[in-house]
């Protein structure tokens, strides 16, 4: 009975939320958990074939949605927290919304992205067959604490799921170390050739997880991802089960996974990791990956992941929320050789992390490569980001709290493209504003 009440509560709260224009996917689930504390266990029992979860600092949403796209393309019924509500409330909300009014769920598979810190609580109720861990970077120290704490939490969670199959990023010494735990079965994915120029950034995991001595890297892809070994104890990058090679970043991205060619139409080197992680997850789950390359044709990048808006020139919105993510964002922007205006929005709300110290771990100097036309700093921490540029000797053209005005201005410059790099809490607001501006722009076009 409690289960039904919890499900109805979520359904009603979701409708009310929509009516008053508040799209919280976490809050209804929190209420459901109060009514029925084991609602996740009760609902997830109905999932017929299996559950895959994705955790790690960056790439959770994209990887999880790619797994979803693959499963859907094979004709399965799939439950997924697509919009990224990844704490315990979000998982409860997703399951309750999928249940019918009699409390039954009809689904073959579930794929959930899960916040690293929430895995311990969620694994009390949910028993996934497969878990992907994408990477571990420094992120929101005020909320998560140090990386060591996050790793400890993941280890505690894994003890609660003894038969789980881990799919791990073998290029990340921190993530790969989960494969050496007792009672886990792990496979690894990785990119087995040097692709990008080596950049100067703060790197985690420079010390061997087994013996504590410094690691040696043959090359880096970015941050601490690369090919490494420990000269002291002999630990090294594991044998890669899902191996990317033949990377070509010129037209979209082309590469091979275990020699099968893959083409994707969007940018961002890190997306190669997301693709191969989702491939590995499907293999570990025993899903047929024969037509894996095909299933991507229908996949659309999520909100604010290199999302493009067409005006008189393209305006591209990209989430950039921690040093590793921001450095990748900058790399992707730099691969576009057109003359560009860049607008950066830095907020310090709870979802962003209230501490913006991380801005100093981003290699912003790289932006100054001669293709930048104007640079604008906005957001609640506009002065912090402007100062960051000042101490890099990069000229900031405008410091303004008004993002809309900043976009309008850049539409009128002689640049060819505009990039908006924003932190998490600014993402939806910026997307909304771009849609409004687009409408405004189209109306003006008609008037002429």
């Amino acid at each position, binding site marked *: 009975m409690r289960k039904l009440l919890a499900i109805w509560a979520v359904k009603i709260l979701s409708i009310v939320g929509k009516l008053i224009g508040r799209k919280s996917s976490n809050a209804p689930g929190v209420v459901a958990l109060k009514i029925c504390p084991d609602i996740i266990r009760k609902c997830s029992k109905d999932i017929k074939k299996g559950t895959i979860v994705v955790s790690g600092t960056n790439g959770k949403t994209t990887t999880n949605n790619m797994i979803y796209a693959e499963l859907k393309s094979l004709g399965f019924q799939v439950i997924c927290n697509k919009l990224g509500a990844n704490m315990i409330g979000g998982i409860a909300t997703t399951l309750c919304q999928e249940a019918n009014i009699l409390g039954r769920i009809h689904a073959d598979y579930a794929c959930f992205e899960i916040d690293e810190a929430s895995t311990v609580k969620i694994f009390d109720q949910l028993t996934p067959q497969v878990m992907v861990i994408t990477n571990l970077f*420094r992120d929101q*120290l*005020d909320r998560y*604490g*140090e*990386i*060591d704490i996050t790793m400890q939490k993941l280890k505690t969670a894994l003890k609660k799921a003894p038969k789980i199959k881990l799919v791990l990023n073998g290029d990340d010494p921190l993530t790969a170390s989960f494969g050496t735990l007792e009672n886990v079965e792990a496979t690894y994915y990785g990119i087995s050739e040097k692709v990008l120029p080596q950049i100067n950034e*703060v790197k985690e995991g*420079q*010390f061997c997880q087994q013996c*504590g001595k*410094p690691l040696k890297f043959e090359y880096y892809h970015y941050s601490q991802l690369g090919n490494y070994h420990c000269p002291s104890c002999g630990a090294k990058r594991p044998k890669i089960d899902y191996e990317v090679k033949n990377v070509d970043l010129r037209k979209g991205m082309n590469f091979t996974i275990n020699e099968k060619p893959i083409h994707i139409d969007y940018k961002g080197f890190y997306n190669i990791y997301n693709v191969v992680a989702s491939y590995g997850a499907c293999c570990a789950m025993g899903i047929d990956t024969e037509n894996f390359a095909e299933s991507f044709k229908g996949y659309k990048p999520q909100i604010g992941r290199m999302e493009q808006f067409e005006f008189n020139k393209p305006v591209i919105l990209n989430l950039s929320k921690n040093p590793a993510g921001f450095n990748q964002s900058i790399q992707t922007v730099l691969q576009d050789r057109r003359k560009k205006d860049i607008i950066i929005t830095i907020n310090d709300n709870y979802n962003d992390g*209230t*501490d*913006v*110290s*991380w*801005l*100093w*771990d981003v290699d912003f100097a790289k932006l100054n490569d001669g293709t930048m036309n104007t640079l604008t700093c906005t957001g609640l921490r506009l*002065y*912090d980001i*402007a*100062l*960051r540029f*000042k*101490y*890099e*000797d990069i000229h900031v053209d405008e*410091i303004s709290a008004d993002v809309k005005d900043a976009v309008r201005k850049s539409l009128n410059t002689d640049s060819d493209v505009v990039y908006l790099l924003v932190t998490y809490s600014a993402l939806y607001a910026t997307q909304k504003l771009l849609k409004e501006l687009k409408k405004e722009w189209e109306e003006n076009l008609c008037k002429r």
Partner: protein
Amino acid sequence: MQEITILHLFPDLLNLYGDTGNIACLKKRLEWRGYQVKVVRCTVEDNQMDLTHTDIVFIGGGSDREQKIVCSKLLEKKKELTEYVENDGVVLAVCGAYQLLGKYYKLDDETIEGLSILDITTERGETRLIGNVIAQSPLFEQPIVGFENHGGRTIINNHEPLAKIIKGYGNTGDTGYEGVHYKNVFATYIHGPLLPKNPQFCDEILSCALRRKDPNFKGLEKLDDSLENQANEAIIKRFG
């Protein structure tokens, strides 16, 4: 022109969050005034430092695990560092490094021995003290603004605090004071890029180093700090 040497101790281990902002700030504010600056990194691996040719030592924050690794390395340098400080050498120690300058840092199940350069002791509290900080130092007019995130509670005994807390937790969360100022040592829990938003604090540190190097030092040339001051004031307006 004079050359100033900044020694960054163990940047490969103690670099928790944006510590490089402090190095960048010290360096740029000297260069903008025409000084030559050399930044020397003493990493865990090469473990070489020469304090006789050092004008400013910077030590940043690390996780508890990293602090344990660093501690033994640091203790090898105890004598040298103590002499440097007693000879008015300039040190900026942030967060974890602040704790390690003291006698010990007591964790739940073990005690990390510190350098005992400062007569202070630290114990881990039950909660972490996290948030924006505003504090007033007697050394300069502009309030210090920044962010703290620490589990340790530090008792500073007879030392002078660096500043009086206006907003935030500080050394223990209830004494109302933040950090320690001893001779030319500036030690604080305000972590990461502390100096860019606190140009007067940065210049105070630079002045100490230049005065020590040159008895005829006449003071620092003024810079255009309007952006730095705006950033400082914005924090006070929002959180003060």
